[in-house]
């Protein structure tokens, strides 16, 4: 089926956000009723998560008419459960550390706050970190529109973080800025790198990436909790194992649902930039509001204020987040540049020079009328001229080129 890449990206990111909101509600119940200790809960999550992820992957590996079940319904790149490849390990280690730390931070935050719609928005500030890092790692300097959209989403999320009970907790801000956000950046960047990898000349699949991430995260969580236990003389490791056995059903439920949230997130990461994916996923806290209302109704979290100012703040935050996401979506320009070169210049050298131009996402050396076809991604045409055309003009080997702006695009999924 061919659908527009942009639609697929938003479907995946929003699906991930909705599932994440549901997960946050389940986590809130577990944290307040069954496993209040965040360290024990974190270790328990990955312990049970490893089992559940393995089970899900085995089910998705079942072949149906020559293709696996997982490739039919979740990710077309998935074939079957496989061992982690040597070349993946260098990315799985930082992604696993990131996931371990952010999970511990997130569950600590949840144990302080209780209300998921208040906990989730804080972590969306990570978009600003991602925009900055992408400008370094993906040779893609953020445009004014990207910065504007990121700031709009961030402030919307921050406003949304004010609890409907009217409480602001400064301790939680420290956890977010010093623990969760840096860990989330590490997790996102390396998950994206894994998704962009080719395994046996095919795109890497989100299901195996998630499964191996859970295993690495389980290992690193065990190390963190063990060190904490060793220093403080506590026994959270044992608490985590006991909780996994006593509340297996609840932890399996949250980790089973989380699995799908992250699989969709990883797939979205393979299509869009990490910052844009994160911006769309910021909508999680909006989806978390009905869950929070439900938890409040069952007295799991404190009842909400009916103060009109609090409700107005929540509404403004909702509008800001939506506005920021729409703004991200509408400001992407793509183009092809068809290039003919002069004879006597090495192909590899020209390819490298083209690749070094900011905004270039694909360089192909071709046989036919043109020597190179280059794909461009830019936020504005002005930037396209200033950053790309000027650079092309500087390459001596180029005889002539044609710029063809992409008006609409469909992609095989």
């Amino acid at each position, binding site marked *: 089926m061919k659908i527009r890449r942009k639609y697929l990206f938003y479907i995946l990111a929003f699906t991930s956000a909705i599932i994440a909101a549901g997960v946050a509600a389940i986590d809130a119940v577990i944290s307040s009723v069954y496993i209040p200790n965040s360290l024990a809960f974190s270790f328990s999550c990955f312990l049970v998560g490893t089992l559940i992820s393995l089970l899900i992957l085995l089910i998705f590996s079942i072949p149906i008419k020559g293709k696996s079940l997982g490739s039919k319904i979740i990710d077309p790149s998935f074939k079957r459960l496989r061992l982690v490849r040597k070349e993946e390990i260098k990315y799985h280690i930082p992604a696993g550390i990131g996931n371990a730390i952010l999970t511990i931070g997130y569950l600590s935050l949840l144990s302080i706050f209780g209300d998921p719609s208040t906990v989730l928005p804080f972590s969306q500030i990570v978009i600003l970190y991602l925009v900055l890092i992408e400008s370094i790692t993906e040779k893609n300097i953020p445009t004014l529109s990207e910065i504007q959209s990121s700031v709009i989403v961030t402030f919307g999320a921050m406003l949304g973080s004010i609890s409907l009970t009217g409480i602001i907790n400064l301790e939680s801000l420290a956890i977010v800025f010093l623990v969760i956000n840096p860990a989330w950046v590490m997790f996102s960047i390396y998950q994206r790198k894994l998704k962009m990898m080719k395994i046996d000349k095919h795109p890497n699949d989100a299901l195996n990436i998630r499964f191996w991430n859970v295993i690495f995260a389980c290992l690193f969580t065990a190390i963190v909790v063990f060190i904490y236990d060793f220093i403080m003389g506590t026994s959270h490791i044992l608490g985590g194992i006991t909780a996994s056995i006593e509340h297996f059903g609840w932890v399996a439920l949250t980790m089973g649902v989380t699995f799908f949230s992250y699989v969709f997130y990883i797939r979205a990461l393979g299509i869009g930039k990490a910052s844009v994916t994160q911006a769309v996923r910021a909508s999680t806290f909006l989806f978390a509001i009905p869950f929070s209302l439900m938890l409040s109704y069952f007295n799991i979290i404190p009842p909400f204020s009916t103060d009109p100012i609090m409700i107005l703040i929540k509404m403004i935050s909702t509008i800001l987040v939506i506005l920021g996401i729409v703004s991200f979506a509408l400001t992407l320009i793509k*183009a092809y540049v068809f290039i003919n070169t002069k004879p006597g210049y090495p192909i590899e050298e020209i*390819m490298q020079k083209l690749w070094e131009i900011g905004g270039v996402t694909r360089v192909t050396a071709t*046989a036919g009328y043109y020597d190179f076809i280059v*794909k461009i991604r830019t936020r504005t045409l002005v930037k396209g001229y200033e950053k790309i055309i000027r650079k092309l003009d500087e390459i001596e080997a180029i005889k002539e080129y*044609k710029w063809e702006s992409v008006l609409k695009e*469909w992609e095989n999924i």
Partner: protein
Amino acid sequence: MINAYILTIMRPGQTDRAIKEMRKLGNIEKISVVAGEYDIVIRVRVKSLGNLLKVTDKIQLIDGVKKTTTQVIEKELAL
């Protein structure tokens, strides 16, 4: 596997219907409507040059397609 771009020039007024036809074809990775000398850029992925010929043939038979230029990809760098 062989990857290629097929650059297409269309007759006026038939682009929408032609795209609908192209979306039904196999081996097509991406269809981009562009503004410039060409009208549609199609990226295809086939097992052999023989299959590339078949796909090109199918595209040329679509109503509204005036001219195609095929560019076979020899090497690629991508994000």
